[in-house]
């Protein structure tokens, strides 16, 4: 079969362009954040991320002159460079916030008390005075300059290794894995059996149970928190990994059963009937036939559940607690954002750190995901 695109070449072009447009639209926001995570706070707040790759001309925030003074021909002198990088080119400068572009580069200007300040276009400055600068407040320089594109890994350094609050991201990483893996595997196992029963076994109340599963899909999580934590405390589980796993299992089951049942119902009827005729028990049919056949669906749910438990914040905070050595990755990053909320560079970087693993998992397993979803909903 030829699709609608294959027939006419001008339509093919239209399709390519529309897809490119769609992908760009979907990718744009994420790319913006990715680029921002490699920029300094100053760059982020001074220019859009899309201009990060070109040289920037603009007014830099005030730079205070600093350096060690030395004596030269009876004058006290401080010199140095205003900028950290060599490629920055100064086009105008000033010492007053009211006239930040008062002077050309390579000019010398007299300030108060006989101080003389000169700034070159390279950013080299020389401040001299007849008396010592000891105890004086040195002047600020407002520079209008062209800065080359510059990227930094400092944000990642800060987020990953700046252990602002005790244990680092590494520990949090481990904690998240400890939460995620069992919280992914247990519900799959439980749901697979239930889904098989709901799909292929005859018993009274089946339709009602299926409806109940759908109804439970919408229970708002926030409601369940206190009654369940109360329960955990009463039966002695308290706060800990076991509690989180159980909670994630409970919360993940409806979707798991829903997806898996949909898939299993679509399996060829004759295979199962034949096996029954041959005298296989339901347990054997399930483990020997249905389970292997359902692998794509199981894998697809595994990805969903993994993404969900990895990205979860609320359940982990409530059932695992907020102790430093138990914080999961999302909780640690949110804490970081809490104290640094206005700072995009930290926000962007933490957001990226938190989505790396889900993205890797997704890209690695998307083959199964697509296959599973495909089979699960198409009958």
């Amino acid at each position: 079969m030829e699709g609608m695109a294959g027939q006419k070449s001008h339509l093919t072009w239209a399709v390519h362009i529309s897809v490119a447009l769609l992908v760009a639209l979907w990718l744009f926001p994420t790319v913006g954040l990715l680029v921002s995570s490699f920029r300094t706070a100053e760059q982020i707040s001074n220019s859009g991320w899309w201009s990060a790759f070109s040289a920037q001309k603009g007014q830099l925030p005030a730079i205070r002159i600093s350096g060690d003074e030395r004596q030269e021909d009876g004058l006290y002198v401080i010199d140095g460079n205003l900028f950290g990088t060599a490629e920055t080119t100064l086009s105008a400068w000033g010492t007053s916030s009211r006239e930040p572009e008062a002077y050309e580069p390579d000019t010398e200007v007299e300030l108060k008390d006989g101080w003389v300040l000169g700034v070159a276009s390279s950013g080299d400055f020389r401040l001299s005075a007849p008396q010592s600068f000891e105890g004086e407040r040195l002047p600020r320089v407002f520079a209008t300059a062209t800065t080359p594109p510059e990227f930094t890994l400092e944000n990642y350094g800060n987020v990953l290794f700046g252990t602002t609050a005790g244990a680092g991201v590494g520990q949090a990483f481990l904690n998240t894995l400890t939460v995620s893996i069992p919280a992914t595997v247990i519900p799959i196992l439980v749901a697979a059996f239930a889904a098989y029963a709901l799909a292929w076994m005859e018993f009274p109340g089946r339709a009602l149970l299926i409806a109940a599963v759908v109804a439970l899909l919408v229970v708002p999580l926030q409601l369940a928190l206190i009654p369940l934590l109360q329960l955990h405390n009463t039966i002695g589980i308290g706060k800990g990994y076991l509690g989180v796993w159980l909670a994630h299992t409970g919360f993940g089951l409806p979707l798991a059963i829903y997806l898996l049942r949909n898939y299993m119902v679509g399996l060829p009827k004759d295979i199962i009937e034949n096996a029954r005729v041959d005298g296989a028990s339901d347990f054997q049919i399930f483990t020997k036939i249905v389970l292997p056949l359902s692998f794509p669906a199981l894998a697809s749910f595994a990805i969903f559940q993994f993404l969900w438990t990895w990205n979860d914040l609320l359940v982990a905070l409530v059932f695992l607690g907020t102790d430093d050595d138990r914080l999961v990755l999302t909780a640690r990053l949110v804490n970081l954002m809490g104290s640094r909320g206005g700072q995009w560079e930290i926000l962007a970087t933490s957001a990226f750190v938190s989505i790396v693993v889900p993205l890797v998992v997704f890209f690695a397993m998307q083959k199964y995901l697509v296959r599973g979803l495909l089979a699960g909903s198409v009958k």
Partner: protein
Amino acid sequence: MTKRTTPTRAILGSVAALALCAGAAQAQMVFTPGEGGFNWDSLEAFGAEHDLSGQTLSIFGPWRGDDQALVETVLAYFKEATGANVSYASSETYEQQIVIDTEAGSPPNIAILPQPGLIQDLVSKGFVEPLGEETADWLRENYAAGESWVSLGSYEGPDGSEALYAFPYKIDVKSLVFYVPENFEDAGYEVPETMEELKALTEQIAEEGETPWCIGLGSGGATGWPATDWVEDMMLRVQPPEVYDQWVTNEIPFNDPKVIEAIDEFGWFAKNDDFVNGGTGAVATTDFRESPDGLFASPPQCYMHHQASFIPTFFPEGTEMGIDADFFYMPAYEGKDLGQPVLGAGTLAFITKDSDAARAFIEFLKTPIAHEIWMAQSGFLTPYKDADAELYGSPTLKKMGEILLDATTFRFDASDLMPGAVGAGSFWTGMVDYVGGKSAEDVAGAIQKSWDANK
């Protein structure tokens, strides 16, 4: 002994550097016992009386990030003196977390919260242990303006009788206006001494085509709270403190003309497009942590910023208080004769799960050293008279401490004292609506309605 080495500082940003300090603090103490002007005797005496080896103490507080690093430096000394194992935890949503934990029956030993209104809720449900008359007497005697601190920490218990439940520790001064001294010099502005002058300066700056104020109310789920500080500050400047107290307890309704006047005083600044950076429309969406950046922009996007004493934490990296930025007391009206009112906030520690270690921790807060260790670093003010004011970590802190001492009236943040539904709910959202264009009458009426619903 500290691990704060210069090369480390230079290589990593200040965040990382602070973090390294925190890492060091956990392992060891930032100030060597016996050195400096600290009251080490108090630590020694405390340690001799309390041996808690093998016991654990869990503390849940509001401080995260850099602040968490600081509180942990203090806890290190408690640990050292008693041998107890201390675990401190916090959360971005700490208000919800503490409610969930207490309701579900797994509270920490000690909880520390900045909202007396929320503590009252917890106390009335019977989740908090009273601290006893002895501690109340101690506060009266040892804290400056002790009686007001006792009343701040006293709540109605489940049986309806009032008692001291929470111990005030660490306070913030809110009536501050931050500015860049050199920008003032460049433009020839003077620091205003009265509210009349402040308003005149605001108008003057606007007339010169510049923007006088940076105001940002954005704070994620708590958006709006910086405006409540403004209104409270203005309330103390147009009405006597008694009216403020009546307002806090809803003896006068929220839509009383006196309250509406205070809201409109705030509106005078915030609802004038020429007075705020980005115009009124930007006020509610600008993040409060990002808002002060305008002071340091070139050319300056604004000249003044009203905020509490903690805000320098959010100034651009490398900003040195006292040189690059400074603050002045938010002045009072000369014509109103209401003295020098100061608005403040603070955190209170209380026992949610009783144990020897929890009691010992409250005793620890009574030692000067528990205050001095934090004072000598940053972001900590205390009314404790025996804590040596010379130890304040910077001239800035000392100056803030002086504002506190010069106050003729000190009042605690009203929104923290009001019931959660109002003080952490409709008051916030109401202020956002107000800045968004609604009238003070409408907004105050809606807030009063939510208060009624809460009764």
